[in-house]
């Protein structure tokens, strides 16, 4: 074997591991060079704020995908939580948020029970909530977009902590928590074990069903958080539109970040970077005023490229 071939293989492996980060760096460089007014604090802030909801949802999605599942209902759960916020804002922002998150917890537990206890395939189990959940949210909200005026609540969408927007901070904290959860806790190890080999995990005495319900619950709660943050940022509860197609964005972020859809592995930092990458792609296309058609085709190409590089290669 020639040294060149060896080098190529090592390069491929390296790319597989660090491809997303390289892509983000490359895109940043491109923008610095070719996009007007890119290098400004305000701009980075915008990108981070916009990426935050996807990132938060994707973190939960990564856990679900780690168990070899998928959760299509995240967008609907966002809508549910958004619909509930204005109903309870009268009791103060804290109860309103708590109720929205509780609804997420309930929805996630529902998904989890379907998957873990009834043995329904995750795509179908969560498809039911995708179809029905947004309808339910609209029923709750009476089909209306509702303006939100509570300043404390709106602070979640516009406020800063030490110069960091609240939603960005939240995304960062959740990322750190999920990373710790995955790498350092029994729960996290059980998640990847179940995704890696469910039969073996059952025989190893792991609480498979409980873990699965937990994972779907976490995912839905994170989606509810994203719903709350989006509502605060929009200063309106808009159950008809909030989180629309979020499931696809989140799954894309997770997969582009290097977590395989086949389960058994969760890459948290990769997921965060994946969300950032997709955000940067969208921003770049907008900033260069590409028509929607070209933007979509470009996005398709970038997804394929990123996943192609990061795919698990089979050696033969």
């Amino acid at each position, binding site marked *: 074997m020639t040294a060149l071939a060896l080098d190529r293989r090592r390069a491929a492996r390296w790319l597989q591991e660090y491809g997303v980060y390289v892509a983000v760096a490359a895109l940043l460089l491109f923008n610095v060079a070719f*996009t*007007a*007014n*890119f290098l*400004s604090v*305000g*701009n980075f802030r*915008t990108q981070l*704020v*916009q990426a935050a909801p996807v990132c938060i949802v994707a973190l939960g999605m990564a856990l679900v995908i780690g168990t070899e599942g998928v959760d299509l209902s995240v967008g609907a759960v966002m809508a549910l939580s958004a619909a509930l916020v204005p109903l309870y804002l009268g009791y103060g922002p804290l109860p309103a948020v708590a109720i929205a998150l509780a609804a997420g917890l309930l929805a996630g537990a529902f998904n989890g029970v379907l998957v873990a206890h009834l043995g329904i395939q995750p795509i179908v189990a969560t498809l039911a909530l995708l179809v029905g959940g947004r309808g339910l949210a*609209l029923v709750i909200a009476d*089909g*209306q*977009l509702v*303006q939100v005026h509570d300043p404390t609540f709106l602070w979640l969408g*516009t406020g800063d902590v030490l110069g960091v927007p609240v939603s960005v901070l939240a995304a960062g904290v959740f990322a750190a928590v999920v990373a710790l959860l995955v790498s350092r806790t029994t729960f996290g190890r059980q998640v990847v074990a179940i995704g890696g080999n469910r039969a073996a995990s059952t025989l190893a005495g792991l609480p498979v069903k409980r873990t699965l319900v937990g994972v779907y619950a976490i995912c839905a709660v994170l989606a509810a958080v994203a719903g709350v943050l*989006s509502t605060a*940022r*929009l*200063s*309106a509860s*808009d*159950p*008809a*539109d*909030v989180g*629309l197609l979020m499931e696809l964005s989140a799954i894309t972020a997770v997969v582009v970040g290097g977590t395989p859809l086949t389960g058994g592995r969760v890459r948290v930092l990769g997921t965060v970077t994946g969300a950032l990458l997709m955000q940067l792609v969208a*921003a770049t296309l*907008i*900033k260069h*005023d590409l*028509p*929607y*058609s070209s933007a979509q085709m470009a996005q398709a190409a970038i997804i394929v490229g990123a996943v192609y590089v990061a795919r698990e290669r089979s050696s033969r």
Partner: protein
Amino acid sequence: RESQTAAGGSAGPAASAAATRSAGPGCSREQLGYPRIDVKDAVIGFSQSEKEANPFRTAETASIRDEAAKLGVPEDKLLVTNAQSDLNKQVGDIKSLLDRGAQLLVVAPLNSDGLQPALDAARAKKVPVITIDRKVNSEPCADYLTFIGSDFVEQGKRAAEAMAEVTGGAGKVAILLGSSGNNVTTDRTKGFKDNLPAGLEVVAEQTGEFDRSKGQAVMEQLIQSNPDITAVYAENDEMGIGAVTALRAAGRNPGQDVKIVSVDGTRNAVQLVADGAYNAVIESNPRFGPLAFQTLQDFADGKAIPETVIISDDQYDGSNAAAKLGNAY
């Protein structure tokens, strides 16, 4: 072309629905050979296109229902379906309305093209069809009776005029487009761009998909990359409101340093105009109920119906917004 000031004068709940224009040669019942069916005694079908989850659709459906109730149509004789944004479903819906015995049809088309089979079915059963809010690309007085609605190109044009006025005819404009592939988007864009004075330069056109949060997100991007934007044309109010939020977050002063004009006439947007954070709203009138039922009755009575009935759209700006807030939907 005959012009007619018809119907709604007394019927509309809002002053803005009062005036209508209509155009085209007449189309009468004799000409088509359809039976005479009085609105009060008829089974009426209404096919709505999208979920009633935005103010326009809510107001539109409500207007139809209210007017039917007012005319004394019993509840079980007004059949309503909703296509949930699925064109094939709308075709099926209309056919099933016919199967269920609808004798008069009011259709809010999801799209200008693609309803042909449904229209054919209605024609075969000699059921007159009125399309509201969106014109279909079919033969009037053959495939369908008439179209009642706004002229979207005209709306774009009026938005351009309003824009020229509020900006003084110079500046850099960003357009927040509606959903791609939708002919409302196409027409409102065309009307706007074709009538924009030379001093106003379009620096960005991006879709906000008629959605507030998308409009907000796109605006946030644009304000970063084009800080010198001085005006925003949003093809619906929702995106315009999103833009206001984005501009405020970026430390701009919407309505002052960045002018905003949009189309629709929802309460939230008009309120913003009244508050001074918005410059003008071109109304797209959803209150089709009175006009639609009047037209159907006229048809039954044997009058000639013009091929297009243009519902008049109002306009809100700084001068009248506060006063007319009650008209917004």
